[in-house]
């Protein structure tokens, strides 16, 4: 009959009006500053530097200032200065470290190429999106102190990727330790008479 369509429409809106009060599934809004939805694991925006622990982030940065990311970065938003001295890395091997590591977020295009080229798993993508600043130039250039975040944070935001990286790093470390132990054992053992050349030092 004429007009029944209008009444059906009114019934639909009335159902939604009442449903929004008692059915949380219908009511999809998140009250943003107070409530937050969990970001999907694959979400990424800007890179950060991974440090081994949160206690001494500058001392335990994985970055060795190899500058591959700086060279690969398409919009050239990364600026690195190598250190003059060397510090021991997680495996105890002396390495360079970045004296200056700046990323200009105003330029970064979130392409993740720096993450893909990094041989040390030292730079990863972050999920922080509340980056508004009152200062247009320096406010958006993050230095290494602002970029450094502990590995535990990385495990929290990208659990799958972090597990894979941690497994690989642990395997590398174990291999290095085994090699060192083997080398030490070889050194301690009496030299065979054939006078082989000494084993190469642990990599």
């Amino acid at each position, binding site marked *: 009959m*004429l*007009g029944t369509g*209008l009444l059906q*429409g009114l019934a639909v*809106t009335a159902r*939604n*009006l009442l449903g929004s*009060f008692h059915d949380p599934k*219908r009511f*999809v809004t998140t009250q943003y500053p107070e409530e937050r939805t969990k970001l999907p694991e694959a979400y990424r925006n800007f890179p950060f530097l991974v440090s081994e622990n949160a206690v001494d982030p500058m001392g335990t940065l994985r970055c060795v200032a190899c500058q591959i990311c700086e060279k690969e970065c398409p919009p050239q938003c990364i600026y690195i200065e190598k250190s003059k001295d060397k510090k021991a890395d997680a495996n105890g091997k002396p390495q360079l470290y970045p004296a200056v590591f700046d990323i200009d977020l105003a330029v970064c295009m979130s392409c993740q190429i720096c993450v893909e080229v990094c041989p040390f798993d030292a730079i990863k993508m972050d999920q922080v999106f509340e980056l508004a600043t009152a200062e247009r130039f320096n406010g958006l250039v993050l230095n290494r102190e602002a970029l450094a975040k502990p590995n535990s944070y990385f495990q929290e935001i990208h659990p799958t990727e972090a597990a894979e990286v941690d497994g690989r790093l642990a395997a590398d470390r174990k291999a290095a330790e085994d090699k060192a132990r083997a080398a030490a054992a070889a050194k301690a053992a009496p030299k065979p008479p054939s006078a082989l050349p000494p084993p190469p030092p642990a990599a």
Partner: protein
Amino acid sequence: MNAGPAASDPILERLPGLLRDWLLQWLPEPVRWLANSLIVIGCILAVAGLLFAFLTLAERKILGRIQNRPGPNRTGWFGLLQPFADGIKMLTKEDIVPRAADPVLHLLAPVALIAFSVLTFAVIPYGRHLVPVELDGAVLYFFAAGAATELAVFMAGWSSHNKFALLAAMRALAQLISYELPLLLSFVPVVLATGTLSTTGIVAAQAGWRWHFLPHWLVFTPWGAAGFVIFMVSALAESNRSPFDLPEAESELIAGHLTEYSGFKYALFFMAEYFGMCALSGMAVTLFLGGWQAPLPFLEVIPSYAWFAAKILLLLLGFIWIRATLPRLRIDQLTRLAWKFLVPLALVNLGTTAFWLLTAPWAGPLQVVRWAVALALVAGPFLALGRGLSAGLGPRTYRYA
């Protein structure tokens, strides 16, 4: 507020009048009439203004809930201060007048619009003793003042010197004049039945209950129900509300006649629109829903103005609900609905009312015949016209590529 309250009424019923008298006793006799009018005007403006403010909030809240979101809830408790934040924002905005516009008309249009819409509030009986101006031709006055708002809308469109504004003003005129006719025709049966053009008289004629529970409201007669529906549809169109909000169809006409308005003038247009909506709802309550009369005898302890407020809020909720539901019509559909559907139905309704009034003495089984004939006279033309108009139009089949 001219009728003095009778001492026999309960205290709540007399309270507004007593307050007014208490305020007036401090003034010398010669200026009391002036102060009386000023108090009434002040009350109307304050109540209508606050109603407008919170109606915008209620509308946004309800629209939000219908779309499964919370609506404004940041400003104050549950967003209750939102209207005032909006008001401050509107007041502090820059008032832009286009260089090519007619500055006098551009300024006068919102003022005239708000003036005419406030005028309509003068004759609505808000309670048993609460009618600002007692007029013999109150209904006529109401619709005359309401129709004058069309002038202001066209003023706005013409003075803006903007093609969208002018187009919208033409549309608005076409729409408002088209719907003026069913609006007026839909209340003629009420005048026919009650024999008076005075709003207090119409409300008084709807007093009492049949069998102590069915109020004598006109909406409970076949012709009254039909008239009420026609009145409300026309009221939707008259107050430029969705689905008839063509003058401001933003997808076609930017903001219609409001395109060149900003700041407080823009707010005044919205205020006038809501005032018009409230006034038409108030008139619908007065004409068809028994005005300030309580629905059941024992509910009369609640004062009459509370009943009026409840009824008007219910109708306003209906306006919001319809806005949340129906999509906008096209201009040809809009005028077709008025001229080919509502006007004939309203004219037939006049005949139905005449039949109803002529058969008033019928009793016993004849009463059943009376109801049957009246219902057939309402439903028959509705179905026949609806079939005829929608023949060849519906239901569409959509084919996707």
